[in-house]
């Protein structure tokens, strides 16, 4: 079983900071939640806070919980600092910043005793609970001196809470200021105002009496790391995989993948003639987007589109064509909560089962499950290679949590392997061979050779269709011809098992309990496994599945474990279902579904609690 580069940050024992910790203090291990109305400009402040902590060498992660609305509805942003490098969402909030009148009472009610609350003083929250640490801040007054412009002041209140937190939590003001300068790069005025607001908050908070135990202390666990969201990472992956045709239709949470890609393409993919070495088309809808990608893949481009569940549903018919006519294309499904329009700004792994069998008839697709931003990068590249190698649509199943949230990561490695453009016959090949049969399995792997339109050879042409065809691509309704072709297609997907990214094993493989998970569940599952071991002495091996169809290692893992918990973020246990269908039936009883459905990024505690419950502990 291959263990690729560990892509999720590994626990780092924070020695020096630990040394300075006083009794009762909680250092570099807590979560902050900021509650604001959507569109109020808090996004920049939250990023600044995140970055300031990161610059202090402390592992952090940020989760934005936003509504499907442009302005006004409630938004929550959670930052977790974790000296051990855990980057999943933390279930409990330790420090709340309550700026939103609409939700303040509910937000406060949900806190565990002992949590700290920084709040906009007029909200008058402190009377609601006696077991919390209260920090009322009259933000309007705090930012009053910063500028005379009332509209700006509204925005700057957000930077003021960063200043307040910096003081309370011991975040270095200099790092906050560095982060501000970076955030508002090339906007001197904004830099200046925001620095002033942060300072105003910082100064104001000097008068607050620190009564909570949470502290940030400089450590050295983020050196060389980057902070990036999975959509940007996937965009970079496509960029460095030599993508040439990008077609899309905007949909949350996938839009930023393409929008980031466009800006990188503009920067890095202008040819020597000053012209683009790529084409991006915003299509009229998802049917057209995938149709263009399929057309481009057919004609030899590295073609991709990105969408979310509703778009994938609309792509069903084309997905079947791609499978049956054997045309490469890469489709990113940045999953959000379904069914239907569902919760468009919440995260999910709910498209796995329907995408595996997307389209009528006997259809089956290759799915990749990146488990980190680094894998969003690498798997984007692998997806193009697989699509061209197997001449079939490949779906990269990321999700909103991975795609739109900020994750810390090692920098992405430059891809050393040359692009695999698959089996394509050139004019010279045809001269040598005299001809070819498009759908003949000459190599025994189920994959035929293709030619690209425009190949200047009288025998290069073939006829592509979604109707029955023989090995020469000629129309056929013959039963045996059809059957043989379908069996070859099944064989091709069998071949894919050993070419898709292998799963990643965590643990020695000797435990009796196994956990299977994938995608953005990884950080929570890794941490849950640690909790099980540390807190309850329950040793579990963990296999992170990285692709469908499953490779042999996945089967082996289930064979080697008595009980296998399949953790995922949907109602019906969709990957568990795929496993059930793929495993030797005798192994199916070992599977247990641990399915989460609430649209929030998965947290470790929910996973470990559920597994403990099912283990009867």
């Amino acid at each position, binding site marked *: 079983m291959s263990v690729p580069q560990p892509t999720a940050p590994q626990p780092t024992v924070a020695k020096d900071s630990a040394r300075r910790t006083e009794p009762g203090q909680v250092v570099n291990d807590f979560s902050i939640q900021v509650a604001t109305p959507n569109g109020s400009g808090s996004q920049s402040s939250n990023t600044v806070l995140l970055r300031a902590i990161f610059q202090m060498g402390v592992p952090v992660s940020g989760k934005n919980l936003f509504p499907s609305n442009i302005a006004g509805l409630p938004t929550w942003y959670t930052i977790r600092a974790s000296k051990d490098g855990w980057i999943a969402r933390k279930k409990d909030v330790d420090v709340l910043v309550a700026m939103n009148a609409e939700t303040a009472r509910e937000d406060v009610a949900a806190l565990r005793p002992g949590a700290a609350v920084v709040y906009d003083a007029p909200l008058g929250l402190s009377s609601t609970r006696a077991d919390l640490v209260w920090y009322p801040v009259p933000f309007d007054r705090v930012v009053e001196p910063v500028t005379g412009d009332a509209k700006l002041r509204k925005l700057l209140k957000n930077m003021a809470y960063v200043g307040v937190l910096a003081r309370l939590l011991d975040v270095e003001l200099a790092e906050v200021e560095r982060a501000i300068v970076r955030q508002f790069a090339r906007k001197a005025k904004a830099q200046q105002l925001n620095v002033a607001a942060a300072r105003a908050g910082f100064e104001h908070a000097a008068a607050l009496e620190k009564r909570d135990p949470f502290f940030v202390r400089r450590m050295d666990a983020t050196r060389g790391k980057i902070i990036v969201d999975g959509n940007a990472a996937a965009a970079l992956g496509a960029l460095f995989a030599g993508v040439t045709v990008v077609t899309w239709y905007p949909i949350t949470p996938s839009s930023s993948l393409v929008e980031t890609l466009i800006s990188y393409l503009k920067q890095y993919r202008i040819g020597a003639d000053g012209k683009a070495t790529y084409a991006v*088309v915003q299509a009229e809808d998802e049917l057209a987007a995938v149709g263009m990608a399929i*057309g481009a893949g057919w004609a030899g481009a590295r073609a991709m589109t990105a969408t979310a569940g509703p778009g994938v549903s609309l792509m069903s018919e084309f997905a079947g064509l791609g499978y049956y006519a054997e045309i490469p294309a890469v489709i990113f499904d940045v999953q959000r909560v379904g069914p239907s329009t569902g919760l468009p700004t919440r995260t999910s792994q709910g498209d796995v089962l329907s995408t595996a069998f997307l389209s009528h008839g006997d259809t089956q697709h290759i799915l990749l499950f990146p488990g980190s931003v680094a894998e969003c990068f690498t798997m984007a590249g692998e997806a193009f290679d697989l699509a061209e190698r197997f001449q079939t649509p490949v779906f990269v199943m990321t999700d909103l949590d991975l795609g739109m949230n900020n994750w810390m990561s090692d920098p992405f490695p430059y891809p050393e392997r040359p692009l695999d453009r698959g089996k394509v016959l050139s004019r010279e090949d045809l001269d040598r061979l005299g001809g070819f049969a498009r759908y003949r399995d000459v190599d025994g792997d189920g994959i035929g050779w293709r030619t690209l339109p425009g190949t200047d050879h009288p025998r290069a042409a073939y006829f592509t269709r979604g109707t029955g065809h023989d090995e020469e691509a000629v129309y056929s309704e013959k039963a045996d011809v059809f059957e043989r072709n379908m069996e070859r297609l099944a064989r091709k997907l069998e071949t894919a098992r050993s070419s898709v990214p292998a799963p990643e094993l965590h643990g020695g493989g000797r435990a009796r309990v196994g956990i299977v998970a994938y995608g953005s569940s990884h950080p929570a599952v890794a941490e849950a496994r640690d909790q099980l071991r540390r807190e309850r002495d329950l040793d579990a091996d963990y296999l992170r599945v990285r692709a469908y169809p499953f490779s042999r290692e996945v089967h082996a893992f289930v064979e080697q474990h008595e009980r296998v918990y399949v953790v995922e973020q949907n109602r019906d246990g969709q990957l568990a279902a795929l496993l059930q269908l793929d495993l030797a039936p005798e192994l199916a009883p070992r599977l247990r579904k641990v399915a989460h459905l609430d649209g929030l990024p998965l947290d470790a505690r929910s996973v470990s609690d559920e597994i403990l419950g099912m283990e009867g502990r």
Partner: protein
Amino acid sequence: MPTPAAPAAPRSNRIGLTVIDYRGGKTTLCAGCGHNAISERIVEAYFDLGIAPERVAKFSGIGCSSKSPAYFLSRSHSFNALHGRMPSVATGALLANRGLLAIGVSGDGDTASIGIGQFVHLMRRNLPMVYVIENNGVYGLTKGQFSATADVGSRLKTGVVNELPPIDTCALAIQLGASYVGRSFSGDKKQLSAMLKAAIVHRGTAMLDVVSPCVTFNDHEGSTKSYAYMKDHDAPLQELSFVPAFEDITVDYDPGSTIDVTLHDGSHLRLRKLEDGYDPSDKSRSVARLMDAQARGEVLTGVLYVDPKAPTLIDSLDVTEAPLASLPEAVTRPPREALEEIMASLR
């Protein structure tokens, strides 16, 4: 008006190929189907123009009409896509390889019913391709239901009468941005040939709506897409002739009675006016004229609109000349330093 005399049919064309090199497989359409006649004109057009079939890419949707790319130009790659979705597939292919000479064949059902959305957006993008609608007013392949181009009052053999107004794909195409729009009739060899040749050399979307009777389901009395109906109602706006760029012929013409359109490659389309005052460079007037014709039951044929200079999708994308599909890795994968630079920006 002098139209250049057609040279005696040569055994081989200017690139040394014979007409056989442009043929396709044996048709499986009904004998007498208009679509077959159109396939013949297509074969002739590419042969006469001396275009290497390997440079051509064929596209279609689903329907009897959409099968026809199998019956011409066997030496060209072809993509018989999904019902109503040919436009997106063709768009993608041309993004991948702008050097392809694309021709799409669709039906009235494939285009005006299920496919109208993609049609609208392809026209808007002025994608450089020939887009032929083989228009018989019915869904031939599913046995003759009305399509969205059926005229009000047209009657099926079963007695069912169409009550919904037809979509005039030509008026739509002009309004939306197609830069060459024509209507013809599968039975009018001369007009269709010239119209096709000009369409092939035109740069931009050349949308041709060709009335093409379905002899099995819509060629009876009461149909408005029958051979007989077309014989009675075909109202040509011009007499067309096409002078290819490579033919070094200069023929005088009377600018009063003939419109000369210089196409992208230097070829000439000559339109001898049969209707005075029809100006195929006037967008809004030509749409209005088409709408009036429809209301009156006339079938205007000829070149309805042409603008040889309109920018295409490919122009507006400012893509490099070489096909994107064949750019080498050295061009499409940015260097190591680029990644380093980006990584540094994310630190």
